[in-house]
């Protein structure tokens, strides 16, 4: 009697709980049209963004004024009243040649963003035209066994983003392939853990710059006689080496700290050593491994910019550096655009990893 009641109840619950799991896994919140939540979730964030832009605008304005006053005073001291007047007139007219060089305002940054997008459209149209033009020629060249002609024009901002993403994924993959297997092996053996611990502790805090130099020394020699693109290789290996430590440490920790109860189950079922690793130890340490991978990806994205900047490999880092050295009138605002793009992509990458992490974690609700 009692039995049948519980049975029908569980069957009912099954569907609704399956839905709930799906919703919680995708990190979707069921929409609630409650004025209070709308205020908290929509109005407050919008207000805070507006406040941020407002403060930025005011700050940029006053920096602009300081810089402009300084310029006028300098003209007055160096060349006299007439020069100062013409400088003031020039600044007021908005002439590019004499604009004060300082923190750009939100409007300037927005303009630069549009410029960059327009530039990208021009360049991709250019590329397409180039491709059409060389299509026939390239086919002939391939047939003759020669390398096809490729577009060698300037990359657009969007191209740079994709180059950076490619580098970061290559680096992340490298970190994954090195850190997870080593982490598992180290985690399984107390002896190995003790003997490798110093190595990890010593290498973990090493700065990205040093890794880059180290990789540079090695890769430069190894790719001496090939005409490969060594800048890409150097930067993705450096990114991987910098970022892999979090995964290594977390994997080793996850594997070494499996709940004693699960180990007892493995023993009672008499699982063979390999089965024990794959059926009990790995699944139970997956959440920690993914926490490590999430940290690795965000570290990889962060150091990537610095490494690209130093290694002169194409990507967002070198974009920022070139703009900085370029010193054109809208360089500063382009740098700020890059900053936002870097930040937003970093945020999105982290969200993706968090979603995956929540999917593999059986005790749910990883810290956001």
């Amino acid at each position: 009697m009692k039995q049948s009641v519980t049975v029908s109840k569980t069957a009912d619950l099954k569907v609704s709980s399956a839905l709930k799991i799906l919703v919680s896994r995708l990190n979707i919140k069921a929409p609630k049209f409650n004025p209070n939540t709308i205020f908290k979730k929509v109005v407050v964030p919008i207000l805070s963004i507006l406040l941020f832009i407002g403060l930025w605008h005011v700050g940029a304005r006053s920096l602009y004024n300081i810089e402009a006053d300084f310029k006028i005073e300098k003209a007055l001291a160096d060349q006299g009243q007439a020069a100062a007047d013409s400088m003031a007139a020039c600044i007021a007219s908005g002439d590019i040649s004499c604009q004060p060089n300082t923190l750009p305002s939100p409007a300037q940054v927005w303009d630069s963003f549009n410029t960059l997008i327009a530039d990208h459209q021009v360049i991709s149209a250019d590329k397409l035209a180039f491709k059409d033009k060389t299509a026939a020629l390239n086919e002939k060249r391939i047939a003759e066994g020669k390398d096809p002609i490729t577009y060698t024009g300037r990359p657009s901002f969007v191209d740079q983003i994709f180059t950076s993403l490619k580098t970061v994924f290559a680096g992340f993959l490298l970190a994954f392939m090195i850190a997870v297997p080593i982490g598992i092996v180290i985690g399984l053996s107390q002896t190995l853990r003790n003997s490798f611990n110093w190595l990890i502790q010593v290498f973990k805090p090493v700065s990205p710059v040093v890794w880059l130099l180290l990789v540079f020394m090695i890769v430069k020699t190894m790719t001496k006689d090939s005409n490969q693109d060594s800048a890409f290789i150097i930067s993705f290996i450096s990114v991987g080496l910098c970022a892999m430590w979090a995964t290594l440490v977390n994997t080793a920790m996850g594997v070494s700290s499996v709940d004693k109860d699960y180990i007892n189950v493995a023993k009672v079922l008499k699982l063979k050593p390999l089965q024990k690793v794959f059926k009990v130890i790995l699944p139970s340490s997956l959440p920690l491994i993914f926490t490590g991978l999430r940290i690795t990806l965000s570290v990889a994205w962060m150091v990537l910019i610095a490494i690209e900047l130093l290694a002169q490999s194409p990507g967002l880092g070198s974009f920022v550096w070139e703009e900085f050295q370029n010193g054109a009138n809208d360089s500063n605002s382009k740098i700020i655009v890059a900053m936002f793009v870097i930040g937003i992509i970093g945020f999105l990458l982290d969200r993706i990893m968090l979603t995956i992490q929540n999917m593999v974690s059986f005790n749910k609700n990883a810290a956001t």
Partner: protein
Amino acid sequence: MAYLELNNVCKTYGEGVHATEVLSDINLSIEEGEFVAIVGFTGSGKTTLVNLINGLLKPTGGEILFKGKAVSGTSHERGVIFQNYSLLPWLTVGQNVSMAVREAFPNEKRKAVKERVAQYVEMVGLTPAISKRPKELSGGMRQRVAVARALSMNPEMIIMDEPLGALDALTRGNLQDEILKIWSKDRRTALLITNDVDEGLYMADRIIPLRPGPRATLGPEFKIDIERPRDKTELNDNPFYKKTRNAIIEYLMSIGEERKTVSGKVYALPELSPKSFVA
């Protein structure tokens, strides 16, 4: 020769200064097909005893013989239901059971394994929840999964470590009946660890108290010669039941008292008198 025999078994945790002898001089013999219950206070070493018998722990002294051979590790012949269920949380109910079935019957075809899993999940009444994860189950349901997992391996002896300890009285009663039903079908040897005297009286052929630790030993056994199947409500009027129950409880109370006096050290208090702040 008994089916399971423990001779002068001791177990010490730690070494040197930190060594604590949890179990000391345990002697026990269980015949084939018998249902034995061990009752004891919390922390007296019941789980330790279970782990010695199932082979997860090695005794520091004495010997444990299973069918005449020394126990040297875990075996599929002895099924275990752990105190805290120990289900693997990333596997569903069906997967938890099927992992055990595949280990116990490595030569079975995929289909046969599946059928066996379904059969045991059905037996504990969890067919509707077969693809749920342990986290989504209630305590009683988890417990039943643990029962299904242990029994699906078809062990000759089943060892249960406070299997119903975490459940409420009503669910407890239901599961007691279920376990008894399964046990009585082919009378496997069973060892039940419990902290509930009534549970032992209802289910077992013999009750043996485990005296409180450290250096816990087994007390005198109490035989329960009551016809099976037993009826809970009738039991209360059974004079033999009443007598045995009182005897066991009296025994446990007396060793409980002993324990209190053992730890009832007298601490010398320093002589203090209130300070005078006036002078």
